[in-house]
Structures are given as structure tokens and as C-alpha cells.
């Protein structure tokens, strides 16, 4: 596998940006600055990073309640994201969506989605558009979803549809081994989720989701297949969330310390740093430079969000429909 220096930098920058975004966002949440519930993805950074490294703005991704990492990897602006989480008018969705509904259609991001499994067919639909247009811009769809989502019927339906129609879509199952407090060993009836690909006659690949290079490589093949019109791939990315299910959840209640330690050992940033410095691809100074830049970016994002206005109350009634004003603006 050959990776350009630029791409290498991007991988680190993106993973670190996600990590620090989640930490910063959590800090703000605990200070009472987020308006609702947030689901941090720290620990899982290598997955969206390694996959989105192959995507451009013309490609589309569907995301989940745990969507900040997908957003950042797809190039969304951290200022607008932070402002959205703080419910501000300058937010990605004018403060109307919040953490679980961040979207940026200009960046090929179909939105975080708070119904488990529900965004998977959206990515299939985006791939259908691409194929319908004769793959003229070679765009592909990526559906991110968790181990818990594999139990949802619509995910099965989506894979069947993509398979029979040979659609350019990558099913990216982020197996972090838990759905809320429920372990995958309890809820998922197969050891290897990747093997379910056989049910649809498509390739299935199990990948170490803590290793961004492994993700990058597997995703590269899947994306290339899709762009070449060879149809969908199922990737199972074995990963781990460091935090609880949502901001206020304590995972210690249902996980063992040694399990967490094992994954912290294999942390994607640590792994990356070790490898690139060892191999001389990047220096510790370069890495520190990136970290410093991102530190500043996070500070700027928080400042931007905190100083942004709230949406005017009229926003309650807009955007319900495209072309006519809402005739029932609250029966008051």
C-alpha cells in the first residue's frame, strides 16, 4: 500500500480532529452548552477517516446518531457543527437539527440519523442516482451503521436491493461491539457480520477498525469496485467507543476495565503515531504541528458557537415544505 505524504497528513489530521472535536463537544455538553443529547465517537476515528479518505464531495455518505466522525471525515466545518450542537442559527442546520441531525448536502453528507438503520437505504438511493446517471461522475454511496443496526430489517433490505441492482455502495458496519449497553454477542446471531455478505452474493471483509491503514486499504478496494460498476461491498470494521453510549452514560456499568484497556492500547492515533515516526514518514514535530492547529480550530469552533445567535422563533415554522408557507402555524 502506498500513501502520499499529503494523504498521510490528512489521515492524522482527520482522526485527531474527530478525537478533539468529541472531547471538546463533551466538555461543552457538560458545561450545559449543548442543548440535547450527544453520542461521541472517540475511539472509532480510524473508520470514517480510512473510508472517507477515498471519497470526494460528489460521493454521498449516510450516517447515524453517532455521526460527528463521519461529518468531519467528509469535510464538514467544525465551526458549523459545534454551533449546531449548541443550537445556534449559524449551525449546520440553523440549530434545528442538533447533534443527531447534522447534514451538509454541499459536501455529500446525507445527514446523521437518529433512527437506527434508517439512513442505510438513503445511501443506497444516492448510489442509485449515480448509477441512474450512468456513473457519469463515478460517485458512490457509503452507508455507515453500527453492529446494533444489523438487526434492523431495513438494513437487510438495503443490501438485497444494492446487490440485485449492482449499485455503487459500501456498507460500512462499525462494529464497536455494543448497542447502548447490549453487547453484539447477545444481539447479533453471527460471529462475523462481514460473512453476512454471502447472503447477498457480495464481498464481505472484516477489518481492524483501530488501524487506519487497514481501513484505508479495504475501503480503497471497495470504493474502486463500486466506481468500476462492480457493485456493493460489506465492510465490518471492528472498533470500540471509548465513551459511554451518550454523553451521560457510564460504560463501566456494563464493560470490564481490561476490555477498555486493550482497545486503548490499540488506539488509532497512538498506532498511527508509532508507525509513521518509526518508519520515518512523519516526524513528531509535524504531528505536534497538526495537533496545535487543531487545538486552535477547536477553540475557534467553541468561540464561534458560543458567540452565535439563536435562531429566531419564526424558524419554527419554516422549512416544513419547499413551496408554500405553513398554513397551520400552531393553532393558538
Amino acid at each position, binding site marked *: 500500500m502506498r500513501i502520499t505524504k499529503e494523504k498521510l497528513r490528512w489521515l492524522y489530521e482527520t482522526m485527531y480532529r474527530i478525537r478533539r472535536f468529541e472531547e471538546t463537544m463533551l466538555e461543552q455538553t457538560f458545561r450545559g452548552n449543548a442543548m440535547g443529547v450527544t453520542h461521541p465517537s472517540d475511539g472509532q476515528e480510524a473508520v470514517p477517516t480510512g473510508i472517507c479518505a477515498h471519497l470526494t464531495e460528489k460521493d454521498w455518505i449516510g450516517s447515524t446518531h453517532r455521526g460527528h466522525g463521519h461529518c468531519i471525515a467528509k469535510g464538514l466545518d467544525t465551526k458549523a457543527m459545534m454551533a449546531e450542537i449548541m443550537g445556534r442559527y449559524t449551525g449546520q442546520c440553523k440549530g434545528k437539527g442538533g447533534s443527531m441531525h447534522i447534514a451538509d*448536502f454541499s459536501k455529500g453528507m446525507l*445527514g446523521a*440519523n437518529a433512527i437506527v438503520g434508517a439512513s442505510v437505504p438513503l445511501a443506497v438511493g444516492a448510489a442509485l442516482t449515480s448509477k441512474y446517471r450512468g456513473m457519469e461522475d463515478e460517485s458512490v454511496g457509503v452507508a455507515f451503521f453500527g453492529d446494533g443496526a444489523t438487526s434492523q430489517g431495513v438494513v437487510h433490505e438495503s443490501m438485497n436491493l444494492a446487490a440485485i441492482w449492482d449499485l455503487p455502495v459500501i456498507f460500512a458496519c462499525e462494529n464497536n461491539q455494543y448497542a447502548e449497553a447490549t453487547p453484539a454477542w447477545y444481539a447479533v446471531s453471527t460471529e462475523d457480520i462481514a460473512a453476512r455478505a454471502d447472503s447477498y452474493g457480495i464481498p464481505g471483509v472484516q477489518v481492524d477498525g483501530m488501524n487506519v491503514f487497514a481501513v484505508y486499504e479495504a475501503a480503497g478496494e471497495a470504493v474502486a469496485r463500486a466506481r468500476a460498476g462492480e457493485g456493493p461491498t460489506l465492510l465490518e470494521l471492528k472498533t470500540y467507543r471509548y465513551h459511554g453510549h451518550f454523553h451521560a452514560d457510564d460504560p463501566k456499568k456494563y464493560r470490564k476495565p481490561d476490555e477498555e484497556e486493550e482497545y486503548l492500547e490499540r488506539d488509532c492515533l497512538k498506532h498511527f503515531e508509532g508507525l509513521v515516526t518509526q518508519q520515518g514518514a512523519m516526524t513528531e514535530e509535524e504531528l505536534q504541528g497538526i495537533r496545535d492547529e487543531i487545538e486552535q480550530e477547536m477553540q475557534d469552533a467553541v468561540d464561534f458557537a458560543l458567540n452565535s445567535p439563536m435562531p429566531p422563533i419564526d424558524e419554527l415554522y*419554516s422549512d416544513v415544505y419547499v413551496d408554500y408557507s405553513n398554513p397551520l402555524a400552531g393553532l393558538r
Partner: protein
Amino acid sequence: MTTADATQTRSVLSDPGVLVPGPGYEVSGTVERYRDTFNRTLRDELDRDADVFIMGEDISGGFDRDTNEPLDAWGGPFAATKGLVQDFGPDRIRDAPISEAGFVGAAVGAALTGLRPVVDLMYFDFVTVAYDQLLSNAAKSRYMFGGQTKVPLTLFARSGGGTGHAAQHSESFYSMLAHIPGLKVVVPSDPYTVRGLLASAIRDDDPVFLVNDKKLINMEGFAPDESFAFPLGKGRYLKHGDDVTLIGMSYTSVVCKQAADMLAEEGIEAEVVDMLSLSPFDEEIIVESVMKTNRVVIVDEDTPRASMASEFAAIVADKAFDYLDAPVKRVTGPHTPVPYNKGLETAFMPQPDDVVSTVRAMLDGE
């Protein structure tokens, strides 16, 4: 599209409630079956816009075993899409596996990324299987993403009793769909209105659900040759009268008209309002008519509780209260599933007689 000899020129009933065509407007057209108008209108929209495609189970139906080419053996339930696959190919007339949630979701995804999908959901009852995609994604995407996107999706399905399809294939619960913010719902009642409303639905940038009552599908009526867009959210008058307002929607507009004709023989002049759209709906035409007649009977095949019949009653009780001379009455399906037996099924559906006797009782009661 229509053969010369079938073409006729008709003056279309025009009234304040009907915006297109306007007063005095004459239009050339054909008397044909609702299903044929529907099919022809789909064809027009496919011709007009290359981004329009249709998806659903068996909408062509059947493939040649040797060539794998679609055969158009089915052409959709009630032949809605018959003949289209030959001209537009299987990518635009796309047969889907039985996975309503999956392909409605895929249609939403396609709509979010630039296409204009039209989904045939077959029987109206199957909307429940795709309900989450409809409510949580199609209807909410624009709002929850702060207006940055749109969902130009059209869905249609066949509703209603009358064909012995029993409890799971005879529902008319469009009330539930009209309840959903972000979704639009239209209920044409004849070839003319389905021609205008289907075109509007497909051209509209919001998700629109079009309901075809099975009892309308083989009915004949006048439909313009040229395609046109009937405005979403507008009702029309089917008859004028001073004594009582009858409000119908979908097939019950036909029922109301029949009841009005029967009442006219008794010297009672009913005004018939055909709602045509349920979300948005034409509040003005309701209020205008009730201000004139001072009495209203709302007729709906959907079950009554928290229904569009309730909604129209509530609108009257609020906005036309000062003009009302009698209690607001509803004639609806009962709060029951749809039974199989023909006699029971007929009793389930509001009949002209039910409307007539409700009006009589209302007038007697004063």
C-alpha cells in the same frame, strides 16, 4: 396521446374553488377511464423530465427467461404502469423486491441526490411497512436539516373497500398521512383531477402521497389532452346549493354528488365540495360554503377517530362557527377494520343513502 375521434371539447366545471382551468376556459380532451388517464399522465411526466423514474413491485412484472428483458407482463396493479417499460426501459420503470421500507428509503435517498422518484406502493395498506422511511426521513429531512435540501418524491397507492380484499388490503387511512408535517397528501376523484394532481405531485419539490380509491380506477370521465398542473391544496365545487354543504374527498366526492342529486329530487339543494387535497387543504372553500349554507355534512371512508373528517369538522367549528345553524355531522367508515363479506363491506363504506338520511335528519331537527 388520444385518438382524434375520442377527442372532445368540454367546458370544465369552473368555480372559485378551481383555479385551473379558469372561468370560461375551454379545453380539448377525452372521456376515458381514470386508470388510463393515470397511465397517460405518468407517461407525460416521464417524457417531460429525464430525472423522473418509477419504482415498485411488479410495475412491469415478469422477465423473458432467455433474454432477461422485462416483459411488462403485469404493468403494475390495476395496470397503472402498463406499457411504460417498453418505452422507458427497466431503469426508469424499475421493478422492486418486496421491501417497501428499503425501496421507499432508497427513493428518498435518490430524491435527496437529485432524482424525482415516483413510488408505486400497490395497496395503500402497505404504507405501514414503509412508515418509518416516510415519516422520519421523507417528511422530516428538509426541516431537520435546516432547509438545505428537498425531497421531490411522489408515492401512490390504491385505497378503499369495494373489491372484497378484506382487512389488510382495503384501508383508507390517509388521515394518518395528512397528520405528518412535511408530507403532502392529495385525493383526486376523477380523471380530470388525477391528471392535474399527479402532474403537480411529480413536479412538486416536496414529498406528495397520491391516493387512488379502487372504486375510481375504472370510472370514466373527462380528462384534458394536454398535461396540466392542478394546484395542490385546492378544493373545488362539484355542485352549488344553498341548503347544506356536503364535503367529500377521494371516492366520497362521488358519493356526495350522488347524494346531492337524490336530495335535489326532494327539493333540497346541497352544495358539494370536493377537497382533492388533504395536506395542505383548502380551508377557504370549506368556510366559504358553510357561510352560505349554514350546515355541513362531512363524508369520508376513512375511520372516524382523529381523521380528516374530524379535522374539517374542527375547522368549521372554529372558523365558521357564527354561521352554523346545526351540529356538524360526519358520515364515515366505522371504527372497525374492513370486513370481507360483501354486505358488511358495503355497510362499512359511506353510501349516498347514509348521506341523504343524515341531511334529512339535520333539516328535520331544526
